[in-house]
């Protein structure tokens, strides 16, 4: 018996078709993976299931009866809970207030009963083996990974029949991602349905019983997970053979020092980092999340206060604000962690976003030289193959991968030749990932010096020339050449004594 059965589901946004006759069905007791490139319609589909969007035509049956959710409440009362990629959490409420928001246990006076709320929270954490999180912390003081875990708790608090995990692992460190996979299995074993969305093939392999593949808003295939190869899945997702996900690594490193760092410390999360980055080199940064990677990139970019010596192209610098770090060919540019919050102005156009940080270059006596600006924008859109109808299209309407390309373009236009990349492929579909890896190698070949942090180990192994492994804020190991393997990075990240 199918727990959920979706037939011929369609949804348009203005002229854009997000879903076109999509079908989907899944049973209680399974983990069902939903795969597809960004823009394939997965997010729209999930939003419809969870009541955040209404559909145009088609039919959804849940537990045999017709389901036409008008709002998120209706979905919840039918036992459908989604862990959203764009979190549904309230920054000014605490962990437990968020988990039980609108379902708080109440006293006789209609006020929240804190004692029962705390007990219920601890029971929930215990039942699903949650990582340690204090229930009384306010959300806005927490990291993305911690908030992601609260979001999962919030979904589970509704004791759903259907749990939807929309790229929930992408914000999690390795150990917590692993926990989430186990949790997914636990849900299935309890006779419930877990719908699992991820761009990481390894995770899908580890957890899914069956998988459905979306492309361009339609369902292209349904498979038993065991009966299908990775290659076939990827081919079906992108609709063509993927030449190669990872580009050929050609040595482009010169002996010229681009960035020399000695004894760099920042707060208590980054201690005494010493390393060098050469022209034409891709230097990977690895380690478990929260071990100083963010602090390292922020300190280098001048966005966090730091101590230590730093030389850029041989000249001593102490960047004290991002503006200082940005200036000109001798500067540093950053692809930030959170492209929606820090990198882009979503309602603004592609061209405005691209030229935002270099706008001074086009001004003549306070007026903008529109032609020069348009020319540069066109070059950048072509170079990066940004898929936008026009440069005037708002960035918020592009897919995640294309948004990330705009961030890259913005960074490249600063002309800085030392680039800091913070997990640039997070939430990016597999086709665009390949393009980004090729771009990174191409830039290195042109003489850029690139510091590349990734939370996905295979990326470091296949793209970087050398890898710094951080553990507890210090550089635990520097791997180069054939030493760079997933096992070596992981053991240096976890163990006291690295190889």
């Amino acid at each position, binding site marked *: 018996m199918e727990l959920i059965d979706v037939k011929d589901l369609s949804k348009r946004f203005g002229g854009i078709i997000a879903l076109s006759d999509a079908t989907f069905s899944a049973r209680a007791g399974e983990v069902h993976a939903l795969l597809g490139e960004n823009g394939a319609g997965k997010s729209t589909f999930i939003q419809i299931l*969870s*009541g*955040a969007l209404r559909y145009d035509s088609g039919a959804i049956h849940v537990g045999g009866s017709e389901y036409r959710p008008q*709002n*998120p*409440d209706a979905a*919840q009362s039918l036992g459908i809970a989604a862990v*959203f990629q*764009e*979190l*549904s*959490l*309230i*920054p*000014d*409420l605490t962990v437990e*207030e968020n988990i039980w*928001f*609108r379902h*708080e246990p*109440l006293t006789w*006076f*209609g*006020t*929240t009963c804190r004692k029962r709320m705390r007990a219920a929270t601890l029971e929930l954490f215990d039942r699903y083996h949650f*990582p*340690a*999180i*204090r229930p009384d*912390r*306010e959300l*806005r*003081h*927490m*990291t993305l*990974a*911690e908030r992601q*875990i609260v979001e999962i708790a*919030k979904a589970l608090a509704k004791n759903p029949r259907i749990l939807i995990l929309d790229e929930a692992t992408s914000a999690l*460190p390795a*150990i*917590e991602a692993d926990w989430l996979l186990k949790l997914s299995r636990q849900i299935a074993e309890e006779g419930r349905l877990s719908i699992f969305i991820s761009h990481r093939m390894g995770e899908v392999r580890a957890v899914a019983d069956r998988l459905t593949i979306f492309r361009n808003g339609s369902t292209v295939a349904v498979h038993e997970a065991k009966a299908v190869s990775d290659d076939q899945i990827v081919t079906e997702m992108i609709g063509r053979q993927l030449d190669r996900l990872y580009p050929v690594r050609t040595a482009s490193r010169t002996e010229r020092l681009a960035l020399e760092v000695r004894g760099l410390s920042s*707060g208590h999360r980054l201690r005494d980092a010493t390393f060098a980055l050469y022209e034409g080199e891709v230097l990977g940064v690895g380690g*478990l*999340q*929260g*071990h100083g990677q*963010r*602090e390292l990139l*922020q300190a280098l970019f001048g*966005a*966090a*206060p730091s101590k230590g010596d730093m030389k850029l192209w041989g000249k001593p610098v102490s960047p004290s604000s991002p503006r200082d770090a940005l200036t000109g060919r001798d500067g540093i540019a950053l692809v930030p962690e959170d492209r929606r919050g820090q990198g882009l102005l979503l309602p603004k156009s592609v061209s405005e976003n691209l030229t935002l940080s270099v706008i001074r270059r086009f001004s003549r006596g306070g007026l903008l030289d529109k032609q020069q600006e348009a020319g540069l924008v066109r070059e950048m859109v072509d170079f990066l193959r940004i898929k936008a109808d026009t440069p005037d299209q708002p960035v918020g309407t592009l897919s995640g991968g294309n948004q990330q390309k705009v961030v890259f373009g913005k960074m490249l236009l600063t002309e800085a030749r030392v680039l800091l990349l913070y997990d640039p492929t997070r939430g990016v579909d597999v086709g665009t990932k390949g393009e980004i890896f090729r771009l990174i190698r191409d830039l290195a070949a042109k003489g850029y010096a690139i510091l590349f942090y990734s939370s996905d180990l295979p990326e470091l192994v296949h793209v970087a020339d050398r890898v710094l492994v951080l553990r507890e804020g210090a550089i635990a190991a520097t791997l180069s050449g054939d030493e760079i393997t997933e096992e070596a990075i992981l053991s240096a990240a976890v163990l006291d004594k690295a190889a």
Partner: protein
Amino acid sequence: MTMAETGDAPRKGLRNGLLDNAPFLVACAMLTLIVVIYGTRQTGVFTLDELNLNTTAAMTLMLAATGQTIVLLRGGINLSIGGMISLGTVIVATRFGDSAGSVILWSGLVLLLGIAVGVANGLLISIFRLQPFLVTLATWSILNGVAMIILPSDGGRVPGWWLGFGYLQFLGLSSTVWMLIALLIFWAWFMAARPGITIKATGSNEKSAFLSGVSILRVNALTYGLSGFFAAAAALYLTTQTGAGSPTIGRDYILPSVAAAVIGGTSLFGGRGHLAGTIIGAYILTLIGNLVFILRVSSYWQPVASGVILLIAVLASAIAEKAARKQAA
């Protein structure tokens, strides 16, 4: 191992707590300073009488600012408070008869009108997705105009017994101090109950609240409806002080109601704030007037002093915000 290690140490939790409440603490410090200066210049400052008197003087602003705080917490703003206060006083001054029945009837109608106008604000904002600033600017103008039509200039009358309300006493405390206590109890209850939590949550992040199943339409109707109710209550109370209606008096409360809330630590961006802070802010703004009088300087110094205090409050919250963000990074 990673999550547990990144968890907060208690000391950091305390620091976060102090930083979060920095604007409120600064407001308390400023109020203390003002009271101390006041006390060195004047005898009898630290008496119940003085508390009764100042609370009675500040109560209109407190009620208006309560209505404003609710809307600010939702991430909006309500300028129509001014129009509602003017219209309320005008209705009272032209319609109140001498009988208790007439007073109760028209008081009830004024409060209902406040709720209705507020709900209308909320519906306009959510159905047509308009800016709260513009919608309430428009309703302010409309209410103001209606007040002018009913009573073109200050005047009218109220029953004599209505006038003394603010000076009634019970157990040594004035009726207004009791009102204030009731307001704070109401607030403590409201913010622990679902409607209050929902307003705060929606102001903190509207999209998240929507995804959690909140009806934005209902939240806005509730928020602005309550705000209108408190504006109407402010109007009723104001007539017990002035004994007359005034079609223009409401504008004196629009910006001070925002200022009192902000001085007390309420964020203009929604999600953060507390009535206790707003009350402190209202006391500060009221006592500044007394202080200027006692120091025997020109009364034009009053707005200057209010402005400086507002700046200090805004700076305090900006600095605290920055420090908190630095720590989170």
